[in-house]
């Protein structure tokens, strides 16, 4: 194999794929990335056996070949080089990288040892814009459960129905749902669950592309493929049935407040400092005279109270929530204003943004 490529391009490719590399696998080759020539381009691949990724970049290919090299060493090496042309050449199982001033030999493992990344090119489900997909993931996936004790809840529910694509996640204490409209007419009706961690990784990768790309989504044999501009991102699905969460979304609320997002975020963050010992229990009171109060409640370290001017509709009301769950959603919303709705102490609270009808976030209240 002999190829010449730009350091910039190679760096970008390595950034995209190298987070997928398995760090604790017992099989050495899983800690490597695969470099291979493919139709006049260079294809980089990595997998941790849950997710597989291929990324192709432009290069001058003088002779064909393939090799795997340790991901960490190779990407740190390439990232440290100045921006110039790099030539990669293979001598047996050793990869020789040459740039103007640097030459290095990296010992690799034969490409035959590398897991085969499955190819899925049938069963197209939909096309979606990368910006829409990324935003939907960021708004929903954080609400998924962190541990795997209930596998379904560690996933994000994805439903495609006509032009409507729904992403939802819940850890059984809070729930986030985002509905996106996709333009392309041809879609299949599908319901599936994807690992939340994997989706967040996909969102990160999509963020690496400057342009807004079209992402094709394919489904087959328990695997899902996201494909765009030289990138294949393949993940397993989570088996099982997602809980019927629609039933817990309240139809109406007693009290509704519209408040500047940053002010609410700051108030809850400060209250959380005082509520740490108290399971992060924070009381929110809405007064019809136009005030939203955030109160940490008393604990050993002291107490904190904040008042925010707000637009309040409906009757006075108060409820307690885990402050972390409020902070999580506010951190992910980009709107200037948010609406916060409650219905007494025992019913769930709702957070949305006034100008995005497709988003809803629901938090379970804490009983004191």
């Amino acid at each position: 194999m002999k190829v010449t490529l730009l350091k910039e391009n190679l760096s970008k490719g390595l950034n995209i794929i190298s987070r997928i590399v398995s760090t604790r696998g017992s099989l050495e080759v899983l800690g490597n990335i695969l470099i291979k020539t493919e139709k006049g381009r260079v294809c980089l691949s990595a997998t941790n056996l849950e997710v597989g990724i291929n990324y192709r970049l432009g290069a001058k290919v003088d002779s064909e070949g393939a090799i795997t090299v340790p991901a960490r060493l190779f990407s740190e090496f390439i990232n440290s080089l100045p921006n110039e042309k790099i030539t990669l050449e293979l001598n047996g199982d050793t990869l020789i990288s040459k740039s103007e001033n640097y030459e290095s030999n990296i010992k690799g493992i034969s490409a035959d040892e590398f897991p085969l990344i499955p190819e899925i090119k049938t069963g197209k489900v939909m096309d979606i814009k990368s910006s829409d997909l990324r935003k939907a993931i960021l708004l929903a996936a954080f609400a998924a459960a962190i541990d795997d004790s209930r596998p379904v809840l560690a996933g994000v529910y994805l439903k495609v129905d006509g032009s409507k694509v729904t992403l939802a996640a819940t850890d059984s204490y809070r729930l986030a749902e985002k509905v996106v409209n996709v333009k392309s007419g041809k879609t299949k009706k599908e319901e599936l669950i994807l690992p939340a961690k994997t989706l967040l990784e996909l969102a990160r990768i999509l963020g690496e592309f400057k342009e807004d790309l079209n992402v094709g989504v394919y489904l087959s044999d328990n695997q899902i493929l996201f494909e765009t501009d030289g990138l294949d991102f393949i993940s397993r699905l989570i088996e099982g049935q997602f809980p019927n969460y629609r039933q817990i979304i309240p139809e109406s609320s007693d009290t509704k407040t519209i408040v500047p997002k940053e002010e609410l975020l700051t108030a809850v963050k400060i209250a959380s400092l005082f509520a740490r010992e108290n399971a992060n229990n924070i009381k929110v009171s809405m007064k019809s005279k136009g005030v939203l109060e955030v109160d940490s409640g008393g604990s050993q370290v002291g107490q904190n109270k904040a008042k925010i001017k707000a637009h309040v509709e409906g009757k006075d009301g108060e409820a307690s929530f885990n402050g972390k769950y409020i902070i999580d959603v506010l951190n992910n919303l980009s709107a200037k204003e948010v609406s916060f709705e409650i219905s007494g102490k025992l019913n769930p609270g709702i957070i949305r943004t006034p100008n995005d009808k497709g988003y809803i976030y629901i938090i379970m209240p804490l009983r004191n």
Partner: protein
Amino acid sequence: MDNKSLWQAALGELELSLSKANFTTWFRGTNIVSQENGEVVISVPNVFTKEWLENKYNTEIKSTIEHIAGPISKITYKVGRADKLKMEMKETAKEELLDFAAADAPEVLYNLNPKYVFESFVVGETNKLATAACQSVAKKPGVSYNPLFVYGGVGLGKTHLIQAIGNELKKKNPKKKIEYVTSEKFTSELIKSIFDKKTDAFKNKYRKVDVLIVDDIQFLGGKEQTQEEFFHTFNALHQANKQVVLASDRPPKAIPTLEERLRSRFEWGLLVDIQPPEIETRIAILQKKAYLRGHELPLEIYDYIARNIQHNVRELEGALNRIIAYAELNNKKPDMALAQNVLGSLLANPKRKALTGKKILSSVADFFDLPASDLISKKRDKEIVLPRQIAMYLMREELNLSYPKISREAGKNDHTTAMHACSKIEKEMDKDEPLRHNINLIRERLYIG
């Protein structure tokens, strides 16, 4: 034709021809789901494994299976585990209802294995006391022995017994809150609760149970905050006359870095131990297991297995399974020749053969951090004498060497030195628990290293 046994036998063979990393990466979570008309279907956990097995190992897998079960036409690989899938569906059926209106009411879940009941436990001389104690606790929880501390080596039935208590109580009174955890799970839940700032929920969960059963308590050793939390939980339950049952692979005294206040509390109630079963019990266990699987083998086979596998009930069961599988797959009647043929390779442990007096000396010296030359020297310091005697005892027990030979190995001239050493260690072991534990540790190392 049993899918599980066939696959186990095949994995056993494949393991020998592959590197460990390759084997664990590609064969973990695989199963045979069906074998019909010469077509074997193997389920694999993910599509990567599927591709790999299909493209790289297919010929090897096929020839291995053919070697065990006779010719087959082809193998297909399917993603997803049949049994797991079913379980998950059931679980989610329960989850269908998400109730956000109800606030933090941590529920106590049973996580007992319904298989573990007293009826399926084979009682023998060495576990009689432990069984009786557990049954008594199951009759009157919180009254008779509190806490009950069960200890014994791996694979002897501790988990079976303590879970049987839970299952028995649950049968009598389904409303009773019974919590079974391993100390490892207890620790990780505590860490998670600290991380999520929900320590109160954690405390409530464990302090409101009627019976708390903790397995593998020895892993609490060295975890200070977990020990403290467990201490408080223990006190709360004990004061309220709630039953606590603990299991460990060694007595409280022999758990290093266990806080004194916990140790004394563990010894408060009743300590019972389970020893490896003697030959009659081993035979009875084999008969029962075979019966539960719907088989009856000639007595001489039970005798053969029981004579050759002495320390671990799990291994005993494994050997039995192997014989039954082999007989079924080859359509033969299980007889002595078959048993010897199947287990021959298993029992002729090459490592055991390779064990020598020198190896024992160096392992013992290693364990006590002494140079091996000290053990065969004339030195008579206390620190050297005991390890030397342990080494001689082990040579007698493990290698069955003659006393004169042992003395020579240990650099002594007189065979009475070895006789004295062996009888002394034997006597001491009855009284001195840490010594017995140390010797067991050395013994394990002999066969691992």
